């Protein structure tokens, strides 16, 4: 049996005075892909951000273990260096900082933390070349300022490209399908699928089943009102597509 990557136990979290997560339990083992679905406002994005350590999200109780360690005690940068990656729903534009240099700084921050030698410019550019093929990202985008003037599709592709470069153990994809047309969606999903491996776990947060046709999950969870209301296999996504979320909102958590 593969080891546990992520263990979320009775997680409660608030933004301001609003309690958004009201007792989430979730266990993800190495190599697994879990989809977290749910209606708007159910807490999906909050869960993603709490796992990445976004300031302003307060964990009021519960615990999160990542590779057996207390994830919540780590700063966002420590989490990243330890191998947690969040692909943002709305990637931030950073004019004046080129993608490639930003990523080199990030990669070397991660490598330094892991006790690996830092990459020099030549090694890094070789890595960029290799990984840009994985996600089929145009090399000119890689050289431009981070996300500046990128289309919605380019931004999402850039997130997956960053993920490929940073090589995380746990990737959290927050609404990666939002704002993508079907071609962009397929290509982004193909990039994600290339990155699936027995050592890497993924938590895919999405509102629609559509993405899960291309990134086929091992498990599907439905988050309603800050709790996992239902869990199942990949077929659950199709059931949700057909029946919507209302039947679960009425049912008690199992």
């Amino acid at each position, binding site marked *: 049996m593969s080891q546990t990557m992520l263990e979320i136990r009775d997680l409660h979290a608030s933004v301001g005075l609003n309690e958004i997560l009201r007792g989430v339990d979730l266990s993800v083992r190495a190599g697994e892909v879990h989809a977290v679905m749910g209606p708007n406002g159910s807490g999906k994005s909050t869960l993603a951000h709490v796992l990445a350590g976004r300031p302003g999200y307060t964990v009021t109780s519960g615990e999160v273990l990542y590779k057996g360690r207390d994830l919540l005690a780590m700063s966002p940068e420590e989490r*990243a260096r330890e191998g947690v990656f969040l692909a943002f729903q709305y990637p931030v534009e950073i004019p004046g900082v080129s993608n490639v240099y930003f990523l080199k*700084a990030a990669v070397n921050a991660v490598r330094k933390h892991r006790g690996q030698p830092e990459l020099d410019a030549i090694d890094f550019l070789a890595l960029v070349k290799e990984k840009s093929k994985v996600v089929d990202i145009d090399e000119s985008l890689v050289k431009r300022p981070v996300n500046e003037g990128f289309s919605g599709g380019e931004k999402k592709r850039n997130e997956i490209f960053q993920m490929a470069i940073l090589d995380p153990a746990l990737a959290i994809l927050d609404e990666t399908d939002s704002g993508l047309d079907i071609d962009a969606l397929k290509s982004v999903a193909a990039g994600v699928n290339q990155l699936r491996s027995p050592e890497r776990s993924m938590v895919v947060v999405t509102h629609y089943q559509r993405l899960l046709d291309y990134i086929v999950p091992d498990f599907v969870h439905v988050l309603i009102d800050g709790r996992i209301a239902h869990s199942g296999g990949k077929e659950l996504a199709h059931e949700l597509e057909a029946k919507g979320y209302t039947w679960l909102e009425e049912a008690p958590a199992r």
Partner: protein
Amino acid sequence: MSVAAETDVYRARYDDLRASRRGEPAWLLALRAEAMERFEARGFPTTRDEAWKYTSVAPIARVPFAPAARGRVDSQTLAPFRLRGCREIVLVNGRHVPEFSTVGGAVEVSSLRELLAREPDRLRTHLGRNVGDDPNVFAALNAAFFEDGAVVAVPAGKVAQEPIHVLHFSTGDGPPSVSHPRTLVVARARSQAAVVETWAGADGAAYFTNAVTEVFLEDGAVLDHYTVQREGDAAFHVSTLGAQQGRAARFSDHSVTLGGALHRRDVNTVFAGEGGECVLNGLFVAGGRQHMDTHTRIDHAVPHCSSRELYKGVLDGQARGVFHGTILVRKDAQKTDAMQTNKNLLLSTRALVQSTPALEIFADDVKCKHGSTTGQLDAAAVFYLRSRGIGEEAARALLTWAFASDVVARFAVEPLRAALVSFLQSRLPEAGPVHEAIA
């Protein structure tokens, strides 16, 4: 010190200098006398004066600054401020130092004092004619007291191959002292040149630099002026730049303000002929208790001219910043196209900035826009960088750099751009990852 006593010190000194000025031409003596009277009549401005509302010059007015003595510097002291690939003229404590300068040439670079001695009437039509139509008393004080300075003359049709660097350095030795360096640039018709002016000085000395730069662009001339203020940390720096543009002339001033305890700069440009373009870009970086004030005034006196202004401020600690930008569009200046932007980044909750755009438009067929924003670092962007493994301090430094760097990126004088980039980077924390990201 009473208001009269504040000006009395200067009057006494002015009278002392009479003997030494016997050789000066009559027109210059008249100019000085008129300037001295103007200074005495007005005295130092106070915060009750609209243009000085947010900047108190009391710390300057109350010190009886002595005239800066002829200073000695070694090449090591100057080294951090010199620029490769430029022709340089160096002034120390307001006086030309021949051993560090390359004067003469087809694009003529001279010491103001030496040129006045050699050809007393040559500068008559330019010197003192261009500091704005209502110059402040500091410009008047400079006219009354300048000892020396730099003159750059670009002949008609000539394209200067190398940028010219005017380096002003203050040693700050002895009791608090003042220098009044003056720079004059005359770009004849259809000429092209770049002139960099650097003001620098020793840290820890409360010296006062009161500089004036006058720039004349004849028809079709192109002049790029760069202003680098890296005075010592206890210095007072007041400077005025006046530029007058002939028909279809293009002028730009790109400034970076980093040093000094108290900084005030006035930039006054006038379009005297149609079809002119003016670009004013500036970056100021203030920390600790530094106070930095920039006032600009673009006078669209004639039709069909365009102006572009972008000023950015980065303030940390308890620093204070002031930006006041006037765009004057006179009655007949139709088809004026003017745009002004001021953006300020506050890195500390105790830093403050006053931003005042002032559009005075008397023509009816014009395009004028202005915008001003002041804010903190975007928390979402900080988190984005941290979520990629970059430490918080480095993330903040990187975003600060990203905010500020576009002003410097526009510097076309490569050695200057490179020198400023490495200097600004050295002031950022967590040098490692930041340098990685912006190299």
